[in-house]
C-alpha cells in the first residue's frame, strides 16, 4: 500500500469514521425506503421526524406507509445494524486473542452454541422467563460451546492459535448436529419456523425487544474498547504479552465470555449469520491500520452498514419473498474467503 500510515492516521481515519457514520444513517433510511412497497425517502424522513417530535412535520402519508416505516422496517434496519456491529466486534476481538485472522464467532462454534440454546428454549423448555428466555439460553449455549472449544483444545493439547480454530470447527459441527437433533425431536410445525430463523433473518424485529441487543451491544462494545491496548499486545504472542504484565489466560477467557454473551444475544434475535466477524475486521484493517483503538469502532460501523445492505439484498433479490440473510452473507463471505486465500498465496 502506498499511503504512509501517518497520513492514514491523521486524514483517512477521521474521514472513514465521518463517512461511515453518514453512510450508516443513509443506509438505514434506504433500508426503510425500499422493499415490496417503496416508500419515498422524503416520506421516510417525515415519518421519522414526526415520531421524534410530532409538531415538526404535518403527516401527509397513509397509515399503511406509517406502519411499514415505523413498525416494520425501521426496527428491522436497526436490528441489522446492531447485529452487524456486534458480530464484527466479536470477530475482531477473537482474532487478537487467538492470534488467528480467521477467528470468527461462527467458525469457532460460538454461534452454533447460541443456536442450540435458542432452539432448546423455542422448541423444548418453553419461554419460562418470558421474552428473556431465548437470549439468555442462547448466551448460555454460546458460553457452553466456548468452554467446549477451550477444553477440547486443551484436551487435544492444541494450545497454538491455529489449532484452536480447528477445535472450534470440530465443536461447531458437533453442536450443530445436536441442535439439529433438537429440531428433529421438536414439534414439526414449530420446527419449520425455527429452521428459517436459524438460516438468519431479521424479520422478527420489534421495538419492544430491541432494547436487549442494544444494551448488550453497548456494554460489550465499551468493554472491548477499554481493552483495546491489551488486544494490541495479545497479537505479539502469549509469552511476550505476559512479560508486559498482562494476565494472558485470564484475559483471553474474559474476551471469550464477553464474545459469547454478545454472539449469543445476537443469534437469539437474528439466527446464524456467518462471516461478518471474519470479513469486516479484515476490510477495516486495510482502511485504518491495525491499532484496536481504531479497528474496534470502525469494525462496528462497517459491520452495521454491511449487514443493513445484506438485509436489503435479502429482501429485494427475490421480492416479495425474504430470503434468509444468512444465505446472502454466506455467499459474500465464502467468496471473500477465497479471495483471502489467493491474496495470502
Amino acid at each position, binding site marked *: 500500500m502506498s499511503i504512509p500510515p501517518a497520513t492514514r492516521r491523521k486524514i483517512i481515519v477521521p474521514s472513514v469514521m465521518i463517512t461511515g457514520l453518514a453512510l450508516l444513517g443513509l443506509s438505514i433510511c434506504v433500508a426503510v425506503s425500499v422493499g415490496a412497497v417503496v416508500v419515498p425517502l422524503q416520506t421516510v424522513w417525515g415519518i421519522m421526524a414526526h415520531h421524534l417530535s410530532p409538531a415538526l412535520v404535518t403527516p401527509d402519508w397513509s397509515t399503511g406507509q406509517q406502519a411499514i416505516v415505523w413498525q416494520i422496517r425501521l426496527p428491522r434496519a436497526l436490528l441489522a445494524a446492531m447485529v452487524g456491529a456486534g458480530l464484527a466486534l466479536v470477530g475482531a476481538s477473537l482474532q487478537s486473542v487467538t*492470534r488467528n*485472522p480467521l477467528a470468527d464467532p461462527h467458525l469457532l462454534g460460538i454461534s452454533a452454541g447460541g443456536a442450540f440454546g435458542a432452539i432448546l428454549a423455542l422448541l423444548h423448555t418453553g419461554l419460562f422467563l418470558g421474552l428473556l428466555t431465548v437470549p439468555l439460553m442462547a448466551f448460555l449455549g454460546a458460553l457452553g460451546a466456548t468452554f467446549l472449544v477451550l477444553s477440547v483444545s486443551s484436551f487435544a493439547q492444541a494450545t497454538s492459535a491455529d489449532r484452536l480454530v480447528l477445535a472450534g470447527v470440530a465443536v461447531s459441527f458437533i453442536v450443530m448436529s445436536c441442535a439439529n437433533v433438537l429440531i428433529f425431536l421438536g414439534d414439526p410445525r414449530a420446527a419449520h419456523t425455527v429452521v428459517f430463523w436459524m438460516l438468519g433473518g431479521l424479520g422478527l424485529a420489534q421495538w419492544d425487544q430491541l432494547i436487549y441487543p442494544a444494551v448488550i451491544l453497548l456494554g460489550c462494545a465499551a468493554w472491548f474498547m477499554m481493552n483495546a491496548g491489551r488486544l494490541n499486545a495479545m*497479537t*505479539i*504472542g502469549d*509469552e*511476550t504479552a505476559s*512479560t508486559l*504484565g498482562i494476565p494472558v489466560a485470564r484475559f483471553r477467557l474474559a474476551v471469550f465470555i464477553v464474545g459469547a454473551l454478545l454472539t449469543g444475544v445476537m443469534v437469539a434475535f437474528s439466527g446464524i449469520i456467518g462471516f461478518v466477524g471474519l470479513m469486516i475486521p479484515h476490510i477495516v484493517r486495510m482502511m485504518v491500520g491495525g*491499532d484496536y483503538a481504531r479497528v474496534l469502532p470502525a469494525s462496528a460501523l462497517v459491520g452495521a452498514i454491511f449487514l443493513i445492505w445484506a438485509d436489503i439484498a435479502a429482501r429485494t433479490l427475490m421480492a416479495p419473498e425474504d430470503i434468509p440473510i444468512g444465505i446472502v452473507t454466506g455467499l459474500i463471505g465464502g467468496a471473500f474467503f477465497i479471495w483471502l486465500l489467493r491474496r495470502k498465496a
Partner: protein
Amino acid sequence: MTAAALRVQDLSWGPKQDLPVLHPTSFEVGAGRILGIVGANGAGKSTLLRLLYRFLRPDTGQVLLDDRDIWTMSARDVARNIAVVLQEQPTDFALTVREIVALGRTPHLSAFASGGARDATIVMDALAQLNLADFADRMFGTLSGGERQRVMVARALAQQPRLLVLDEPTNHLDIRHQLEVLILIKGLGTTIVTSLHDINLAATHADDVLVLSKGEMLTFGPPDHVLTEEMIARSFGVRAQRQHLHPSGDAHLTFHL
C-alpha cells in the same frame, strides 16, 4: 536507565514432581553486568529464562531482583522492571513498527489510558537507538527478519527495564545484525541475561558465562575461566580447541567431533 542486581537461589523447576528440567541453581549477576547462558539444545536454557521473567513459578528457590522476590511483586510491577525479547513472532495484524514498540509502554500506563507525550518520546528514543526511526510508520509485516528482531528489542527498551532478558537474540540474524544487536545491548547500561548458542559470541560479549547441561549448572564465571576445553567437551559433547587469533590475539574456540 538504572540497572538491577539479580540473585538466583536454589532455583529449580520441572513439569512434574520427578521430572526436573532445571536442578537447583544459584548464581548472581551484578547490576549492569551481562550474563551469557550457553548449553546444548534441551539443556534448560529457556526454562531458566522463563523462571527469571516470572513466566514459570519455581518449584524451589527464589529469583531476587534487588533483593525482592519477583513472586512477591505483581505481574505489572515485574513488567516495569524486567523486559524480555523472545523468539516469538507477532502475527501480522497490520500494526506499524511504532505501534509495536509502543506496546512496551503497556505496564507503565494506568489502566485503559493510551500513552501521552512522554510515552511517545520514549518510543521515539527506543526507535532511534535501534536505527529504526525511518521505519516507524512501516508495517511490521513488511520487514525482514533482522529488522523485526530489532523492533522487538526496541519494544523491550520502551519498557525501560532494569533487567533485560533475551532468548537467543542473534538467531536467524546475519553476521552484521548479530554484532549490531550485541554491541547495542552492551551499551544499554541495564543488567542483561541472554542465552546464546554461539559460544564464541558469548565469550567475547558477556561479562559472565553460565554453562548449562541437562538441567544442571556446570559452571559460572568470567568466560576465560569458564569456557575451557574440558567444560565444552562435557556440556556439548564435542572436542574444543582454544586457539589465539592472529594478529588480534583474541581467544577463539574451534570445535571438532
